């Protein structure tokens, strides 16, 4: 019995520093981990989470941020939204814009990606060119499109006139301005979906395409039945990403039409900006921002739900 006891003792004496040794690195690792994470986490908390919570509070206040006087008004800001015709217009414009922009950017991106997914001369040049639209600053993009679509001096009207189509007013027309912005932003974002689709296309196994060919499928059938389903994860990602961006449209509107003419391009985020920084209704602007948050939440949830059904993941 002595031996095992001695052994035990020895083991214990041995294991005590061993355990402590194991524990000490764990503790210092934990310390290091927290030390690395904390500054970032704090910055995110201060500049991300606090404003989110604060704007939630503000949405129940009458707050112009100028005076210290910020009385709570309950749901008044939210109720005012229901009766504000511009909010209704802004929602409509935002949804119409999203419904056109997201499929537009995806289809244009898919088309270009498929066209560039082959071995031809200068292919990297084309690919770079396609992505260049993402690298160009929004302000340059807006200025170029303003001139392309200028009613009197624009190239677009010139080409239309060659086709015998009369001069269009474009950004000067309340019924056309939003569509010009759709075209402008599709152009700007196509490079992004090209890159995503190109990457996804590289992942489509040649074996499956060959098998489809052996089974007698033509190029179109192969694309529709084999390639497209295999691209569905990329499509879901793009749909979600582009939708969130579309619902937050601001830059192009601010730089070109500033919400005009006659509110025709006033989208939700632009209206939030107008209420907050032009009218100093920070409470009301916060309420609209939360309403937009709700829209994005619902739309994204629906997309993921639908995406799960239609997305095909290769195991």
């Amino acid at each position: 019995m002595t031996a095992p006891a001695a052994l035990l003792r020895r083991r214990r004496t041995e294991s005590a520093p061993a355990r402590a040794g194991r524990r000490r690195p764990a503790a210092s690792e934990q310390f290091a981990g927290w030390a690395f994470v904390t500054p970032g986490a704090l910055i995110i908390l201060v500049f991300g989470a606090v404003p989110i919570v604060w704007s939630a509070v503000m949405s129940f206040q009458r707050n112009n941020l100028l005076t210290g006087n910020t009385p709570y008004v309950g749901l008044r800001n939210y109720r005012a939204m229901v009766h504000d015709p511009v909010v209704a217009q802004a929602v409509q414009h935002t949804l119409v814009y999203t419904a056109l922009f997201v499929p537009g950017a995806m289809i244009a991106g898919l088309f270009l990606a498929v066209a560039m997914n082959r071995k031809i001369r200068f292919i990297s040049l084309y690919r770079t060119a396609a992505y260049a639209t993402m690298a160009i600053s929004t302000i340059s993009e807006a200025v170029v499109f303003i001139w392309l679509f200028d009613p009197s001096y624009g190239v677009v009207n010139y080409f239309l006139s060659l086709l015998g189509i009369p001069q269009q007013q474009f950004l000067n027309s309340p019924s056309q301005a939003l569509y010009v912005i759709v075209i402008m932003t599709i152009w700007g974002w196509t490079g992004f979906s090209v890159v995503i689709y190109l990457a996804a296309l590289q992942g489509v196994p040649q074996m499956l395409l060959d098998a489809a060919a052996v089974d007698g499928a033509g190029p179109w059938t192969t694309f529709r039945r084999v390639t497209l389903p295999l691209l569905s994860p990329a499509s879901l990602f793009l749909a979600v990403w582009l939708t969130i961006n579309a619902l937050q449209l601001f830059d192009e509107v601010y730089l070109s039409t500033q919400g005009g003419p006659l509110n025709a391009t006033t989208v939700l985020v632009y209206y939030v900006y107008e209420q907050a920084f032009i009218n100093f209704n920070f409470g009301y602007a916060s309420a609209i921002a939360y309403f937009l948050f709700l829209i994005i939440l619902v739309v994204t949830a629906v997309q993921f739900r639908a995406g799960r059904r239609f997305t095909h993941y290769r195991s």
Partner: protein
Amino acid sequence: MRTHWLGVALASSLVALGLAACGSDASSGGSGGITISIWNGYTQTEAKAFAHLVSVYNKAHPGTTVSSLYVNNDNTLQKVLTAVRGGSPPDIAYLYGSWAPNVAQIPQVVNLTKVVQGPGVSWPDFWVGERDVATVNGKVIGIPALVDNLAVVYNKTLFAQAGLKPPSPDWTWQQFVADAAKLTNPAKKQFGTAYVTPGTEDTVWHWEALLWEAGGQILKPGNKQAAFDSPAGLQALTTLRDMAITDHSMYLDPTDNAYTNVFNSGKIGMLVTGPWDLSVFPNVHYGVQVMPSFPGTSGGHQTISGPDNWVIFNNGATHVSAAEKFLLWLTAPAQVKYFSLATGDLPTRRSVETAPGFLQQMNKSLPGVDTFITNLGNVRQARPQTPTYPKVSQILGNMIVSVLLGKSQPQAALAGAAQQVNQALASTNG
């Protein structure tokens, strides 16, 4: 588990230290002196001239250091609000005049009413349009930093080609409309004039000048009711409509930045604009004339001005008095004259205009600016000083644009807008 909290505590104190280091601006300079911070949006020539003035002041006042910080003018109020909330506003900030009624609500803004009445300041030397914008409900909240106004810049070459005499100082809107029609040539894509139509304040203030010239008012005294739905309002709106809809002599710019290029390309005959645009017309042989008038009305030749203010924020009595002292020096005639000559900005003081040789010197560097300077005398009123003005402006913007795009008739548009404005003024929440 203790180590984990220790880690958090240590890391957060590091962050706190870092933030504190960022936040500790030199609020009290070395050797017992005082540092006052001034936020401004000057770039290029203006920045150079301003830096020169600041260094002159700093040299002459060893106890005080003026430290200048660049902030894009468009964002200054946002940043000032944040800084005020954080308890560290700048001592002085350059703020747009259109914000004045809202700025006046910030409790930390220093009331300068007594300061500007002090000896040697000579407050009436500032143009009335400037003083009106620096004053909210009888309280002076700022000292004029910049002044401008609208006048007509016209293309002399196009006038000669059309066989037209250049506009004279006593011209009328009737002549303006007729000239615009004659200057228009659809084949050459040439327009008589231009107007910006995003529906923002830039759309609105051009029309407001016409409204005043026609003898009208924007709001009734007391700022509780609309006054623009009047024969004067109708005359002002119809004049613009005649050019946009009837004559097609008006280039409508929905973006607010295309028109300068079109004018510089020699495609526009006349432009109602401000002195800031002159430097971007190098390709045009242009002239400048005051705004036309509506004969038979009480308005005469008027214009509108958008002055900006230097505003002082309360960082304690010593800072306030140092800031006031610097600001009064900065806006004294000698410095105003220096700054105008160096930058081409209009002088904020009347006495500078009449200084011998001043106009000629200004004109040498920026041809035509003398008309803008003398035109400051035609600034007889200011936009209503009410916090609801931004909302009023949006309503007026939509009214003007809807008429210029042919979506509604002037009379109906005026009535509709007046109703909306009355509603906006009645509800406190804007």
